[in-house]
């Protein structure tokens, strides 16, 4: 089984330790070894918000230097930023380790994970993160207009994805804080998911997780790793699943 360098980014270790626990539980359940990228910095998403490309590239050059082998990301902003930086640096002749988003790892290990996992029976509204899918010619992860990785990953743990109108739209989390649109987009997304009868919203991006959670008073918003960890036998409370959501699973 491949060993990965685990790039956790900023939000997961500092705001969502339960997601980190879940990721580590999922990886160890299939015997995947990881090495820590101690001293890694923020990936400086969107070329450091567009503010300064030189700093963005330098920070990620440094991040790459801390990796031993293929990098696994657990936030899609990180994936996009590292992938963009890698392509930029590759042009100068250096060879860097590949970068893989968490959902691609699940997809590659779908058979083994599926065999080990219990079926959860949840109805999930998928939040496809923008930076995992687009620009599709660069990301090359999934079909940008009809993405299938998240849907298949949920199938493998007995969850059904419910169609909803805002499935492919942006959560708004990267819009500047002073703009009202930031909130409008998140609320629209949550109400679309609620309208579709979902038990929860599922994402693989820590920014979507943060922003949508802030605007979802009733419907739980979770990282896909949390559902996987639950399906693979982790304690619900250790991977941050609220009693409300867990009760929905228990009732199935």
């Amino acid at each position, binding site marked *: 089984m491949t060993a990965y360098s685990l790039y956790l980014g900023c939000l997961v*270790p*500092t705001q969502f330790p339960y997601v980190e626990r879940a990721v580590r539980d999922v990886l160890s359940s299939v015997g995947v070894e990881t090495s820590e990228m101690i001293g890694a910095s923020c990936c400086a998403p969107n070329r450091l918000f*567009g503010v300064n490309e030189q700093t963005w590239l330098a920070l990620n050059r440094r991040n790459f230097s801390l990796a031993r082998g293929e990098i696994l990301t657990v936030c899609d902003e990180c994936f996009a930023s590292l992938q963009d930086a890698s392509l930029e640096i590759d042009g100068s002749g250096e060879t860097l380790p590949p970068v893989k988003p968490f959902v691609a790892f699940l997809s590659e290990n779908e058979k083994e994970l599926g065999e080990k996992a219990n079926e959860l029976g949840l109805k999930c509204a998928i939040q496809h993160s923008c930076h995992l899918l687009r620009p599709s010619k660069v990301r090359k992860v999934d079909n940008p207009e009809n993405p299938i990785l998240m849907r298949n990953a949920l199938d493998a743990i007995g969850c059904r994805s419910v169609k909803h109108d805002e499935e492919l739209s942006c959560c708004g989390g990267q819009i500047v804080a002073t703009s009202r649109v930031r909130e409008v987009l998140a609320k629209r997304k949550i109400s679309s998911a609620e309208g579709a009868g979902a038990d929860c919203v599922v994402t693989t991006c820590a920014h979507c997780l943060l922003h949508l959670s802030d605007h979802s008073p009733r419907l739980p918003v979770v990282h896909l790793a949390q559902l996987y960890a639950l399906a693979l036998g982790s304690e619900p409370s250790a991977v941050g699943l609220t009693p409300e959501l867990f009760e929905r699973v228990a009732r199935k």
Partner: protein
Amino acid sequence: MGGPSGGGSGGEVKRMAQELLKEGNAVRCFQCGSCTSACTVNSAAPEYNPRRLIEGILVTNTPPTYEDVWMCATCGLCLERCPREVSAMDIMLAARSLYLAGDSKIPKDRETMIESIVSTGYSVPVKGDIKKIRGELGLPDIRISAEDQAEITEEFERSGLLSLIRHRRGGGDER
């Protein structure tokens, strides 16, 4: 939406529009409007219109305003749906650095995140009880050594971004 913040002169505004012609395949745009119909932000705020913003650059030497460039959600749907591989998103990102290099600041929330990376390596503060929770969950300590932090900070100094931001701070940009 107002004009470029910070009172840039007419000449500077024109130069900025000309700089942006080089970004995101702007010159390939044939004004079909696919970007605007795809744009998530436009669907909630019709005043943000990527086709019109590119038209301004191509036709009237008018760059997007400071407010415009920070409205982009960077969702990438404009580029994905464009038949000419024009990226309004990349044009907006490029314009942000031009505004910073000119006489505008950057929005407070982004400045706070950048300052946080400079001083801690993370873009967000480490939550108060997070170290305790991490311990209870059996997760390794969050630690960036002084040497690592010095390397990170140095990248901001080397690029000149740190002094640019600190120099700008205190300028009259309350919005």
